[in-house]
């Protein structure tokens, strides 16, 4: 039951992120969304993912957003109205969401019922055993991202 409450809360935070006027509130809603997600992860039996989500999703990303928003002036003009042709976008989006749901459901049809989650399979084993290549790719991503950020700022500073 807790799961469904959490799911509903997640959807609510997501809607808040989209529709609240103030950008800072939106960022806080995003953090809340992350917190709910991390709780859900824990319930679903993924404690490491839960911790990562909490620290990175709710902590790091929120702080990054806030810092950047404060760098930029006029943070409060963030809420823009629907543009003139937003009705088209809306219908298109509705179609997209409907298609996605249908696709997801049709994909899931062959799925067996929820199986018993294996008791705390050793994460490090999986991480370093099976998914070693992914971890290597991950470090490359992080490295590239930091270099990218550095380049972006340095170029601007050099001008």
């Amino acid at each position, binding site marked *: 039951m807790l799961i469904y409450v959490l799911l509903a809360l997640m959807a609510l935070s997501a809607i808040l992120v989209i529709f609240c006027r103030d950008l800072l509130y939106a960022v806080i809603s995003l953090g809340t969304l992350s917190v709910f997600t991390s709780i859900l992860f824990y319930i679903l039996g993924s404690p490491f993912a839960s911790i990562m989500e909490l620290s990175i999703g709710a902590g790091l990303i929120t702080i990054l957003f806030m810092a950047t928003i404060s760098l930029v002036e006029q943070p409060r003009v963030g809420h823009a109205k629907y*543009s003139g042709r937003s009705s088209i*976008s809306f219908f*298109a*989006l509705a179609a*997209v969401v409907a*298609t*996605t749901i*249908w*696709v997801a459901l*049709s*994909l899931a049809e062959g799925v067996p019922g929820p199986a018993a989650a294996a008791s705390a399979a050793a994460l490090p084993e999986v991480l370093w055993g099976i998914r070693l290549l992914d971890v290597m790719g991950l470090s490359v991503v992080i490295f590239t991202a930091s270099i990218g950020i550095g380049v972006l700022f340095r170029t601007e500073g050099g001008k």
Partner: protein
Amino acid sequence: MMNSSIYMAQIAVPIGGAALTLLVGAIKPRLRPAFAFLVGAATACLTIITLAGAGSPGRFVIPWQGVLNEFSLSPDGLSAYIAAAAGVLGCLILLYSARYMEHEEGLTRYYALVLLFIGAMIGLVTTDNLLVMYFFWETVGLCSYSLIGFNYDNPDAAKAGLKAFITTKIGDVGLLTGIMTLYVSTGTFNIFEIIDAAAGGAIPAPALSLAGFGFLMGAAGKSAQVPLHVWLPDAMEAPTSVSALIHAATMVNAGVYAIARTYPLFSEVAGWTTAVTWVGAITALLAACMALYARDLKRMLAYSTVSQLGYMMFGIGVGGLLASQFHLLSHAIFKALLFLCAGAVIHEVHTRNMDEMGGLGRKMPVIRTCYLIGVLALAGVPIFNGFWSKDMLFASALHSGNIVPLVFAVATAVLTVIYSLRSYFRVFTGELSAAGEKAHQSPPSMLLPLVLLAVGAVTSWLIIGIYSATLHQTGLIGEAISVGHLIHETVQSTALLLSLLALFLGGAVVFSTRKAKTAAAPSGLALWAGKGFGFDQFYLALLNGAYQVAGAVISTYDSISNWVGKAAIFLTVGFGKTLRNQNIGDLNKNLLWLVSGIVIIIAIVCVKRG
């Protein structure tokens, strides 16, 4: 049995040479004639080597997947000799061209096309796949049109090329219909398999008959038979060497070859042999009449070619396959000889009108002798090769009992004697004309091919033994005959009487009217014959009417299409404006399309899997 890749080589060498000629023309233009001659000589050697193994051919195959079956070459007696004629005559004519064409522009084009033609002609006769044959059929046609229009800045030449293209294309429609009908009925393009299938009754009679008359139509177009003969006289706008090779000795035989090749297939079709016989007989007679009144030397020879091709068709129609094919070889030799002589004459006197020639015999003795040999062979004087093959034709007709067409053929023989001897007298004897004052003997490289061909015209009938044996081995004729047998048969047969009668009558007419060289203005039938019996006018009127009808239809269609066009413009502009509004650099919109695209791709994948 020999290495069958030689069959490929004899096609690949000239066609590859044609491609290399373009290169040579770009680097060292002076070497073009020598290079082309070397390629031609190599091809001639290859074809002669092939000839040796023609009795027991191998088969060269490049398999293709799909409906094309395979690219297969398997020369038998029928094709190997025509291929050899193309190779050897091509080689001689390339030698002749070196001096004959030396002052012309666009020689790279000339040599490349001639070599391409030789290769395609050998391919046309050696392949046993009808579709490949059709491909080569069109390729030789292409070379023919391009070379007719060689002097494309001359409007007559350009028009003649176009006329040849359109006229033969009408026949090609029939040929293609025939090939497709055969393919649909049997599921193969291989002519031998088709013949076997037809013998087994696999092809329904209407389909076979449609195919048979389609082939006849294609052959009539290519071999200039009535009513599609009108292109060949105009084709004389081509350089004379081209006329000798393509429009006398080889390409125009392709139609006769196609008919001979499919003779076992269609000979049982009701009315087919009769149609072939009559097309041939009528063509022979009409063309001979036209040749009688032609003033242009090359045109006269062209009509004569049409007439002789008619003989070959006639020969196949009456069942004389050997006679017809043997006449084809004889004709290739003596007609190439005549054309090359005519070319040498025209080269010196700069006119094609026979009335402006005369007395050239003293200036050009070698050419005079060669031309005389050619004329005697054409007229069918004993000992020359034309005599034997023509006599065999008459004998076949007598044997099969086709008396009325035979009368046509004998009448043609009389006319042939008249026009050929008369042309000789008009060009080489009598008073020296003004145009001939500066004429002198041709260079040796032009005389050599002439002399070789003249020797061939006298002696080529001696190969009848080998030739008929080869045809017999390939199962096309019942029994082979030796040279002695040929002489024996000829002397004993009634046909000899007919030949001699024709000779006598023709000779009498020529010698009795010899003094009146330029007769009074032709009138009546003569005038009509001189204008080609009005075929051209009739076709022009027909086309004129067709164009007027088409014009009316098109103008109606035009006004409709105008509105359609306006509507299309309106729609296109509107659509463009809508599209333009989607691409204004709006990040959100771009992302929307991106996401939609991804979703659609996923959906497609799911549907495919589901």
